[in-house]
């Protein structure tokens, strides 16, 4: 009987301990420290990137929290002000990244990741007399492309223009001006202009680029005020088909702007056009009234990752995202038409349709010169002023307006010139390769 009671007591004790353990929440579970990532991708692109992060988080000991917005600058400024920046920021502006690096808000990347600092996406930045790598391209896009409806004549194109892009409205117009300047004046002038060494008000090349753009847009007759207004308020993604409003935007060539035949747009617009077989792509040089010497020059853009905190998971994530394995996983995780372009020839490239293959060939093989998007090299204040100036010029493409705008932009340039001219800092100038 004594043994029975003892066993019962042990059983009761065990039950009690179990109950207490259950009540105290049991053992804590460690899901890994979070790494917060802020990036530019929303919609389907954001979904694809989130899928990659999910894939990369397996076995990493970290959880990745991603937020996508087109108002990256405003968001980051708010986060810095609150003292709570994300661990990793993915930005497309070298000018903005340089600003943060100079303000000591970025952490140098580890040497392994720094090997992925491809030119022209990661130009040399000298701080305190040392070459530093603060960012590397994750995915890239080729600009200087024209998309058109199959069968339409390229002799007198009717241009589709959509200037609205939420916080960054106006950039489709700056892309035009940059591309024309690159092909007319060449990479040397382009670099001088993008890096703040060219007087906006006195540059004949720049004035010519603006006026060429206006002439191209009016090549089939002066645009009506209504058409101008429609382009100003039209998103660069276009609008959804009214019969299928839930299907998402259909692109400017997909019927958003009836009557137009050609669109000057970067390679990412294939997200909309890849499933269609009636849209073709070709180099923009053929349309820009440029010099034959620069016909193989292309503008490029990129989404560059930078580390903003000392969270070791942040360095690790950027390393993983830029590794061969990471890029392959990204490519595999994305739907065919959302597969990104990567900067190196050895990286996986989308090949789901002829346009994607053609773009990948230009990007990694055939382009003689690749220049980083000029407005994205400029300091953010000047870039934003450029966006607004282009909107105004698009509305009123006359000489007095242009002179006024270029004068204002020159004032902005001179106001911010010298911001980083201490001997300890040398801002990037190698933006063409």
């Amino acid at each position, binding site marked *: 009987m004594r043994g029975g009671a003892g066993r019962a007591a042990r059983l009761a004790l065990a039950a009690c301990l179990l109950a207490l353990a259950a009540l105290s929440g049991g053992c804590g579970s460690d899901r890994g420290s979070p790494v917060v990532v802020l990036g530019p991708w929303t919609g389907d692109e954001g979904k694809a990137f989130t899928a990659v992060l999910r894939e990369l988080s397996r076995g990493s000991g970290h959880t990745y929290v991603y937020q996508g917005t087109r108002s990256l600058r405003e968001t980051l400024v708010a986060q810095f002000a609150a003292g709570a920046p994300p661990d990793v920021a993915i930005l497309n502006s070298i000018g903005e990244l340089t600003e943060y690096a100079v303000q000591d808000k970025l952490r140098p990347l580890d040497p392994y990741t720094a090997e992925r600092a491809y030119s022209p996406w990661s130009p040399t930045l000298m701080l305190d007399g040392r070459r530093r790598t603060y960012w590397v391209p994750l995915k890239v896009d080729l600009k200087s492309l024209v998309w058109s409806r199959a069968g339409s004549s390229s002799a007198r194109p009717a241009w589709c223009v959509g200037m609205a892009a939420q916080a960054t409205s106006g950039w489709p117009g700056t892309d035009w001006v940059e591309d024309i300047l690159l092909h007319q004046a060449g990479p040397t002038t382009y670099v001088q202009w993008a890096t703040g060494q060219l007087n906006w008000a006195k540059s004949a090349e720049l004035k010519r680029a603006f006026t060429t753009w206006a002439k191209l847009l009016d090549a089939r007759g002066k645009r009506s005020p209504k058409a101008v*207004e429609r382009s100003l308020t039209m998103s660069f993604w276009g609008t959804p088909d009214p019969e299928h409003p839930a299907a998402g935007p259909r692109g400017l060539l997909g019927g958003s702007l009836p009557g137009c035949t050609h669109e000057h747009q970067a390679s990412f617009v294939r997200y909309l056009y890849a499933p269609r077989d009636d849209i073709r792509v070709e180099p923009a040089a053929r349309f820009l009234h440029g010099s034959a010497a620069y016909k193989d020059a292309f503008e490029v853009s990129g989404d560059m990752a930078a580390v903003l905190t000392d969270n070791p998971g942040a360095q690790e994530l950027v390393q993983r995202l830029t590794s061969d394995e990471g890029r392959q996983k990204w490519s595999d995780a994305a739907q065919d038409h959302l597969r990104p372009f990567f900067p190196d020839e050895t990286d996986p490239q989308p090949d789901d349709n002829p346009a994607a293959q053609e773009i990948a060939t230009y990007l990694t093989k055939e382009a003689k010169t690749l220049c980083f998007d000029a407005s994205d090299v400029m300091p953010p204040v000047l870039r934003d002023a450029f966006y607004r100036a282009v909107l105004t010029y698009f509305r009123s493409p006359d000489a007095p307006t242009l002179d006024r705008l270029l004068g204002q932009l020159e004032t902005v340039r001179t106001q911010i010139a010298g911001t980083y001219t201490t001997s300890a800092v040398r801002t990037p100038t190698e933006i063409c390769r």
Partner: protein
Amino acid sequence: MRPHRTALRSPWVPLRRLLWPPAGRTRNRTYLRDRLIALPLLAAVGFAALGWAYADVRADSAYIRTRLAPALGDLADAKTSLRIAQREAEVGLDAGTAVELSGLGPRYAARTGAAAQDIARLSRGGAFGEAQRQELDVISGLVDGYEEWITWARTNVGDPSLRKAGLAYAASMLCSDASGEPATTRTAPYPACRPETGADATTVVDRIAALERDLHRRLTDRAALGPGVLAAVALSAGCLTLLAVGLWRTFFFLRRRMRIRASVPLLAAALPLLVLPWAVADGARAWTAQRDTLPYADTLTDRASPKVEAATDADPVADPPPAAIHPVTAAMERTVADGALGPVGTVAGWVAPAGLVVAAVVGGTLHAYRREYLLVGRGAGGGA
């Protein structure tokens, strides 16, 4: 088969004897030893389980009152404030160049300022985790960008196309379904702003609506008794019932067998049991109050509207409409606060420690009685 059945039953027989000793047939020292094991354990487990469940319910009330309700109010206010600001901007800019002199009006400034303050308060408020705070930063950035485009539209107020474009860019950051149609020609006075969900949710209102859904889900979870609380309540009810009955029977045992008329320490140890019904009633009241906050949350997320807020602004002295944000938020907070039964809630954190004290007193007392009994028995040359 019989021995097998006995073997199966055997672990439970002593356990049952511990929890419910047979009256009259047990030897004194065995009875005291069993009580010495069972009663402190029942006290410790019963009080701990009840204390945890009670503290959990009280913590839910505090969380709803101090975190969720203010956060829902701030989100609703930020959303409606920006829609009011958009209309103010549309109307002001549509009036033409007069705005260069008059500005966009005090209501535009007040409402954009209020939205910024709401978002800043939400970031500091503690209702959100890492991912949601990041989302709030994005919203804050979008609001900054929104105001920049409104400013640009104002700068270009003399050019209808640029003015309209600036308003359209601002509106596209505010709502996914922004039509670009100015307030002066639109049927509805305020932009509709039906929130998108999923990957298409990129605007201020989309993102605020997603945060509202998240808060609403958490409120529903908090206002429900989770399986952990239900299990703890059931466990504590069983343990405390057995403890009360066990103490009662032990009093009788001590009186009948050991001639102790009233054990003062055991009576003292039983006193905390008298407080427990109040704690249970307080917990039930708190839970009911939590459930009562759900309609207020629905009102804040679904019925709060710029029209109602504008009417409140226009006549601040009048009784606020039923869907006005600040009164609804205050009512939500008050409902949870009123769910407390006086100061009873303050004992929540002391229930489990009280259980340990009860266990120690019962255990110590019974141990002393048993030791005394064994000594007396040994002195008398044997025991019962």
